[in-house]
Structure formats: structure tokens, C-alpha cells
């Protein structure tokens, strides 16, 4: 019996979500008296850091043919690792790659999947996992009824705990199936902080009146080490790129801190950001719905408040370093 964690890498390092999945798997292993084993595909540095999160063994698959991410191939490799390690629980991150691979694995192994878990499983009476449903407006306790269980963990939802063991790194090999998918190109906004991985996000909406006024939003993001985002209308009119749009139809994000500047707080927007730990709303309209969802609010004009806030943050950062 073991717990297998699929830990994804990007440019030769483990992703933040992979570390969180490892932490989840390590904690679950301690709780259930299992061994936590990570599977890493592709060349990667710093695999021994997984030991910090209770991972005692790392299966490292470095065959050629996996440099391009093909979920069908990855699913095959994970399934082979499940077989060789006799794993009964498999952990993924509920991110872009987890959403491609975990459902495939669930069908392949005939194993129940809970996607977007926000807490460790309850193993006292059956095996159930808590997840957010109705776009964050409720939670569901979902029981997994099959003997093999798959969980994908919602990013930024389970606190990391230091659980140091020594991680033994062993090569892992298996034949890859031939598939019909070819990766042609990967386009990355490499200079920017990834919106779904950022701890702090500064977001603005129509209240900014025009794309030329985003300088102060970028200044605030820069001062805080934050990523920038926007509301749907702003992306639709073309003031900001579509990949910055957060909300129900755009990206769903869960940062520690979310600034909503000049965004009224329509239910569709809130659905994409209500997983944020702390929300700050800045709006001229005291009746803006965002103030009902926010932890802190400033009723005021963004053009007056934001530049002052940039200075205040800079001053704070300078005195704290």
C-alpha cells in the first residue's frame, strides 16, 4: 500500500502546485500509516526537497518522448507507477495538467475521483473528501466508493507542514504508448508572474475608465510582488489581454490577497475570486456588491487612493527589509 503523488515540473523545477500536492500526499501518508511516493516526469532539479514534505521515495521517469506534455502518455506512466508501487491513493494538483490527467486515470483504473479537494480526507467513516461546489458558494463532502481513490488538490488550500524524511530517488521506466497528439508550440508570458500561482493579485475593472490608466495598477502590483488581473468587461473591450480575465468564464484564482479596484463585484466575477483568503475592495460606490464579499474596503476614487497606496506599500516594504 502506498500513496502516489504526481508532481509536475516546469522548465526543470517542481511547480508550486506540485509541492502542494506532495505536502497533501505526505500528510495523508502520516495520517493513514502509508508510504508517500512521488512520480516526476522529465529532467528536474531539487527532487530531494520533496523529503521535506514526507515523501520517502521519488520515481523519476526521464525517457525521451515526454518533453511535450501529452495527457494520454502521462496517464499511462502514472498508471504503471500505481501498479508497480501498489498504490491505493493517487494525488494530483487540480491545475491545468491535473485536469487533463486525473480524469483519464480515473477512467483507466475505474477509481473514483474528487477534484478540487480543499482538505485532507476524512477516513473515520468511509473515505470522504471536502471540495468547493457551486463556484465556491458551498462545500460538498464527497465519498469515494472504489478501492483505488484519486484526489486532485485545489491550489493554495492546504497549509504546508514540515514533515522531513529522506527522499530516495529511483529511476522509473516504462514503454510509452503511441498517441495521436502532437504539441506544436508553447506560448508563455514568461516575464509575468503566473496569475493562478500568485500569492497576491491586483485586479481592476471598468472603474479605471481606460487602458491608459493601468500604470498605477501595475505599480501597485510591482510594489507588492503581485500579478495583475481584470474583470470581464475590461477584457472584452480589449483594455487588457484575455488571459488576465478572472471570474466565472475566465480564470478562477485563490490567492492569499486579492485587490479589487473599480470592480463592482457581479456574482460572475465573485465566482472566480471568492476562494481568495483576504479581499480588499476599492470603489467609489459604497453600495458596490464587492464590499459584501470583502474583508477590507476603501470607499474612494481609485485615481486618488491607488497612487497613495503604492507609496504606502513602498514605504512599508522599505522599512521591513
Amino acid at each position, binding site marked *: 500500500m502506498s500513496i502516489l503523488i504526481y508532481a509536475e515540473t516546469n522548465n526543470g523545477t517542481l511547480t508550486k502546485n506540485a509541492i502542494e500536492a506532495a505536502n497533501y500526499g505526505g500528510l495523508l501518508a502520516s495520517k493513514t500509516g502509508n508510504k508517500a511516493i512521488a512520480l516526476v516526469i522529465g529532467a528536474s532539479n531539487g527532487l530531494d526537497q520533496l523529503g521535506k514534505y514526507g515523501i520517502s521515495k521519488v520515481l523519476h521517469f526521464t525517457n525521451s518522448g515526454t518533453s511535450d506534455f501529452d495527457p494520454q502518455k502521462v496517464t499511462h506512466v502514472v498508471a504503471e507507477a500505481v501498479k508497480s508501487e501498489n498504490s491505493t491513493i493517487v494525488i494530483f494538483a487540480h491545475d*491545468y495538467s491535473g485536469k487533463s490527467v486525473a480524469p483519464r486515470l480515473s477512467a483507466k483504473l475505474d477509481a473514483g475521483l474528487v477534484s478540487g479537494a480543499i482538505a485532507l480526507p476524512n477516513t473515520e467513516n*468511509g473515505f470522504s473528501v471536502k471540495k468547493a461546489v457551486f*463556484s465556491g458558494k458551498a462545500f460538498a463532502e464527497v465519498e469515494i466508493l472504489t478501492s483505488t481513490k484519486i484526489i486532485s488538490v485545489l491550489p493554495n488550500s492546504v497549509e504546508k507542514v514540515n514533515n522531513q524524511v529522506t527522499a530516495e530517488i529511483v529511476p522509473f521506466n516504462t514503454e510509452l504508448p503511441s498517441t495521436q497528439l502532437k504539441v506544436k508550440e508553447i506560448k508563455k508570458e514568461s516575464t509575468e508572474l503566473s496569475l493562478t500561482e500568485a500569492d497576491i493579485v491586483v485586479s481592476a475593472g471598468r472603474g479605471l475608465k481606460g487602458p491608459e490608466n493601468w500604470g498605477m495598477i501595475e505599480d501597485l502590483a510591482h510594489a507588492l510582488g503581485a500579478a495583475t488581473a481584470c474583470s470581464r468587461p475590461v477584457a472584452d473591450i480589449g483594455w487588457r489581454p*484575455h488571459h488576465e480575465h478572472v471570474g466565472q468564464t475566465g480564470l478562477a484564482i485563490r490567492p492569499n490577497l486579492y485587490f479589487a479596484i473599480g470592480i463592482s463585484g457581479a456574482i460572475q466575477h465573485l465566482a472566480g475570486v471568492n476562494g481568495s483568503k*483576504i479581499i480588499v475592495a476599492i470603489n467609489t460606490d459604497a453600495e458596490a456588491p464587492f464590499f459584501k464579499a470583502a474583508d*477590507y474596503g*476603501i470607499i474612494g476614487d481609485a485615481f486618488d487612493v491607488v497612487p497613495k497606496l503604492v507609496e504606502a506599500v513602498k514605504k512599508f516594504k522599505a522599512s521591513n527589509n
Partner: protein
Amino acid sequence: MKILVCISKAPDTTSKIAFTDNNSKFDENGVQFIVNPYDEWYALVRALEIKEAGGGNVTILNVGGADNDPIIRKALAIGADDAVRIESSTEDALSVAKQIAEYTKQNTFDMVFCGKETIDYNGSQVAGMVAELLNVPFVSLASKLSLSGNTATIEREIEGGVEVVEVTTPFVISAAKGMAEARIPNMRGIMAARTKPLTVLPAYSSQNATKVKAFTLPPAKSACKFVDASNVEELVSLLHNEAKAI
């Protein structure tokens, strides 16, 4: 091209979320149901565009009870040719995927389109499961798709960017924003939808892999703490000392 579009029923975004039966069931009382937005706006409309450009057929598939028929008629009104409903009350993603996969095996399709997730369970599971059960490629979170013969070039969202992949039919995608623009059915479409074929099939046998034990609502959010616009330093201090967020 023969395209299968899988649609789910979902409560309207603005619905009040409440539960009954000892918090084990969603309270449908007074709830307006819609076609799950990602299935309708992106999967269905893109399928119709492909058919309009190159011919073919768009079939709607829904797994559910007779109370789903109104949303199936809505999808037909937007322009799908025909529809199939598999009579099943299961809410388990793997069971739903098995129903879709079995149907697809018996009635071949070139492409299967799903939305990226439903707005009620937010699972993002069924499309990938169907692909595995059919042993075909799956492109998740597809935001653009163009066809040349039986080869599709698809853009999909990945961490911090976009990946361009090429697949040949048959394949499964889950559609996200960017694929197409929402369409509103016109009167002719609504009239035509009444007589388009909607076939009801019995469920294929399958066992549930998961089951919702209980729903809970989040604790009430404490009131927003207001800071005066002239005192932004106070906000910075609260975020540092109280919220420990910076």
C-alpha cells in the same frame, strides 16, 4: 464531420444555493435551470460553426431525467440537429462518462465536445474520462480550434500561457472561453426545435464511484472593515498585522 456535444443541466448562476434532505441534496425549489454555460456558449456554438463551414451533423447528448428536456430543446433551438437523452439519475462523473462513452462507441463521432466544467459540481472530470474510455486524445480547456480535413489545431490553456496541439479525429475536448461567442436562439430556431428528434435511451449499467454525503454552506463572512480613503497607511498596517497577508 459528426460532432457530439455533451450538455449538462445547471442552476442559473444567480440561484440561491440551499440544500434539503439532511443537507444531502441541492434544493431545486424555485431554481431556474439552464444549459451549463461552458457546454452551451463554447462547446455547442463552436460545433455549430464547424458544421456551418464544412457540413456535417451536431448531436446533443445529455445524461439525466425527463426534467432535462427543456434545456435539451434549448440546445436544439440554438441549432443542433438532433438530441439523445440517456435516462439516468446518476450524479457521479465516472458513471456519466461511461454512459457517454458507451453511446459514442455504438454511434461513431469524429469529435466529442464538452464544456470545461459544470458550474454546480465544478468537477472538470467527464470529458477526460470519456476520452480515456474511448482511448482517444483529450485536449482540456481548449480556447481555439481550427480544422483542416480531419486534423484539428487546438489552443489550450496551460499554466501561464497557451499550448498549441495538433490532433486527428476522433478526439475529445473540453471547451473554455475563446472558442466561440454565445448565441441567442431566434424564433425560427425555437419553432424548429419542437420537432427535431429527441431520442431517449435506457442507461447502460454502471456503478457509482463517488457519492455526495453532505453539503455545507460557508460560514457567514464577517463584515467588511472600512478604512478611510485618506488613510491608506492604515490599510497597509491591517494587511500586515491583522490579516498577515503582506
